[in-house]
């Protein structure tokens, strides 16, 4: 889930890149992919945000926040979702705010008592499905989509449901052999979450997995690389991709089409929590409230390309189903359950 090309351009713009600073810090298990300092008033308070979202995406929000609170220096750290989870779980981070797209891991952190409570008008205004207790809050809702290269279809109808997709793949194996991309749930936490939610939602997922398995699919660890391969023509379709990444990195009127499947389309919630160990939880709360405010949500949608929390949009389309923030998410994190699911998935996908 990285957008290295954009982030590379951004790095030059940033006032300070502190990748080396990680080495100077006390021994920590956390390996950062990026660390960017947005300086405020010298000598002012420092807010550390640990996130799975690339700096480039969050930069407009940080800039707007600092326009309101110029005294705050914001240290923005990026790491993989598993690393973020482990760092908070093992107390290996001094982050004030943790933002992650791995809903299940965030849920486990909150459930196991690693999140501090936070009350504000902004959090209270969130719809019930977009927060858990007063500890976990969704800042963006992102559909999990199918992306199709129409050139590869060669005039065939674009599938709108999983059943149609299964039929398409089964009927035209030659068009798609080796040209299907999807997440590798073994390597990717997001891929695992999407696959388990698919499996939970419908049996059609297993049929689809079996059909895909017969067509030698390519497995990816991030949406970004999947989309890059699709743009390069190496893939005909990519299944279970984060729509927000797709929408912002694809030309609006190209041959590549983003499809929200009509039988159901999961909505991933990008969630934030304030760790109990946060050195400056009040700054974290201020930033979180800003992200959830009307201004923050507008910037989120327009500048960051992450869809704002919008209950009306979900109500209007019955096929959009937000992944529920409830203890059910803990189930697939159980090692036995994970082992069993991955075994089943491998059996379906890696057929002899």
């Amino acid at each position: 889930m990285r957008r290295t090309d954009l982030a590379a351009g951004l790095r030059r713009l940033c006032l300070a890149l502190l990748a080396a600073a990680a080495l100077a810090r006390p021994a920590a298990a956390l390996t950062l992919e990026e660390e960017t300092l947005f300086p405020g008033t010298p000598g002012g308070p420092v807010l550390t945000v640990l996130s799975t979202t690339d700096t480039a995406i969050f930069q407009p929000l940080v800039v707007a926040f600092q326009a309101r609170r110029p005294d705050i220096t914001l240290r923005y750290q990026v790491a993989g979702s598993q690393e973020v989870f482990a760092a908070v779980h093992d107390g290996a981070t001094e982050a004030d705010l943790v933002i992650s797209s791995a809903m299940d891991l965030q849920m486990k952190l909150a459930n196991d008592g690693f999140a501090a409570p936070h009350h504000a008008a902004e959090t209270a205004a969130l719809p019930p499905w977009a927060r858990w207790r007063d500890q976990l809050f969704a800042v963006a809702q992102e559909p999990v989509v199918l992306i199709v290269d129409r050139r590869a279809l060669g005039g065939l109808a674009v599938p709108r449901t999983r059943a149609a997709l299964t039929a398409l793949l089964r009927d035209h194996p030659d068009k798609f052999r080796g040209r299907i991309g999807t997440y590798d749930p073994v390597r990717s936490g997001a891929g695992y979450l999407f696959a388990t939610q698919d499996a939970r939602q419908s049996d059609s997922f297993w049929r689809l997995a079996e059909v895909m398995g017969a067509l030698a699919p390519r497995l990816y660890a991030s949406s970004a690389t999947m989309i890059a391969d699709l743009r390069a023509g190496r893939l005909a379709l990519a299944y279970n991709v984060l729509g927000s990444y797709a929408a912002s990195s694809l030309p609006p009127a190209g041959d590549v089409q983003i499809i929200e499947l009509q039988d159901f389309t999961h909505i991933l919630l990008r969630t934030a929590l304030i760790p109990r160990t946060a050195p400056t939880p009040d700054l974290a709360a201020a930033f979180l409230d800003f992200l959830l405010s009307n201004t923050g949500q507008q910037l989120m949608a327009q500048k960051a390309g992450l869809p704002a929390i919008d209950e009306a949009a979900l109500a209007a389309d019955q096929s959009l189903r937000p992944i529920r923030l409830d203890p059910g998410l803990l189930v697939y994190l159980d090692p036995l359950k994970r082992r069993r699911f991955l075994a089943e998935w491998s059996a379906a996908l890696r057929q002899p």
Partner: protein
Amino acid sequence: MRAAAPGSIRRRLLLQLLGGAAVLSVLLYLSVRGVSRSAVEQTQDSILGAATIAVAEQLRGTDEGVDIDIPYTAFSMLGAVGQDRVFYRIIVDGADLTGYADLPAPDDAPPGLNPLFYSRPYQQALVRLAAVNRPVIAGGHTAQVQVIVGQTRSAQEAIVADMAWRAAALGLGFFALAALLAVLTTRSVVRPLDRLAGALGRRGPQDLRPVTQPVPVELAPLTAALNGFIARLSGALKRTETFIAEAAHHIRTPLATLRARAEIALRQTQDEATRASLREVIRAVDDSARAAGQLLEHAAVVYRSDQRAEAPLDLAALLRDIGQSYAPAADMADVALAVSVPDSAVMLTADRLLVETALRNLVDNAIKYSGPDGRVEMGLGVAQGRATIRIADRGRGLSGASLADLTGRFRRGRNVEDVVGSGLGLTIVQEVARAQRGRFTLRERDGGGSCAELTLPLD
């Protein structure tokens, strides 16, 4: 509501009703809260138990050992009621298979296949736990598997707190309603008493009619006793007056005989000492006869005060009649009697005998206490719905005595020893004025003498 006096029925009744309502309200609050708490607890326990059993049902024995496929819905349903933290632990033959290894296990073995519920502190919260045991055949032997699922109870606490608020609101509402009813009940209970007391309080001092106010059966003995008392009182009064009247009558007749005999004896004897004695006798007899007469009049007035024969009465004509009837007596006493009344009739409703008796007493007094060549003026004026009869003389006046001094029974002024009198005249006038809802005043006149005024209301 009026402030209740100490020992008031109203206050006692109200306090007892309010106290009862308060006790019932508190009981209602406590019982609703208790029932709702146990209901919520039972509901939550059964959900937790169902989730635990749902997990346990997924236990499988394999050749390698025990495996489990934790159902998503088992945990998801725990999130249905509220947003509570969920913990689980699965132990196979005393060794942890998966879950939270430090989650407290139950002290006792769960009964049979049913879950055992218990509460323990865990991760800075009080956690409600359910444990079930299942034997699983795995790897050739039977393994004892214990499944423990726990959940914090913040949603339950929130529901119970909400229920408690509702119960409190219910109790308060109940109390407010009961208080309103208590006030209304107290009022309706005390109202007949108030009415009876008010009716008795408004009565004049002479009003000895029986109480006819409708009263509740509980008060009937009281009014019956009161009426009996009133009847006895008025009977006693009547007997007294009758006795006085009869006594006066029985005294007057022999006195008249005695006076006649004394006058005959006076005419027949020439002895001056005897004549002087006889004159003393006649004077004493006159005095006694007059006293007896006034006693009789007084008795009649008092009796008639209670049972007046009201009828239209022309005061002007009455005054003229009285003036005429007293003309000879005035002549004999060398007193000029001037009567000045309007030509037109002055009508009011009154007992003629009472008014006439009062006026005769006043005129008689005026003539009696005027010396020779005195002048008595009788006048009648009408103003502001009242008729005022004025009888003025140039006699010896009151010598500073007040009306109250002079209207007591058998009380006389200090300057009248030489004049025959009983001390009942002004008492009678006062009684009449009261019976006719009028007013009687007596004052000194400028330039000597006194002026009596009897004011009576016109129709």
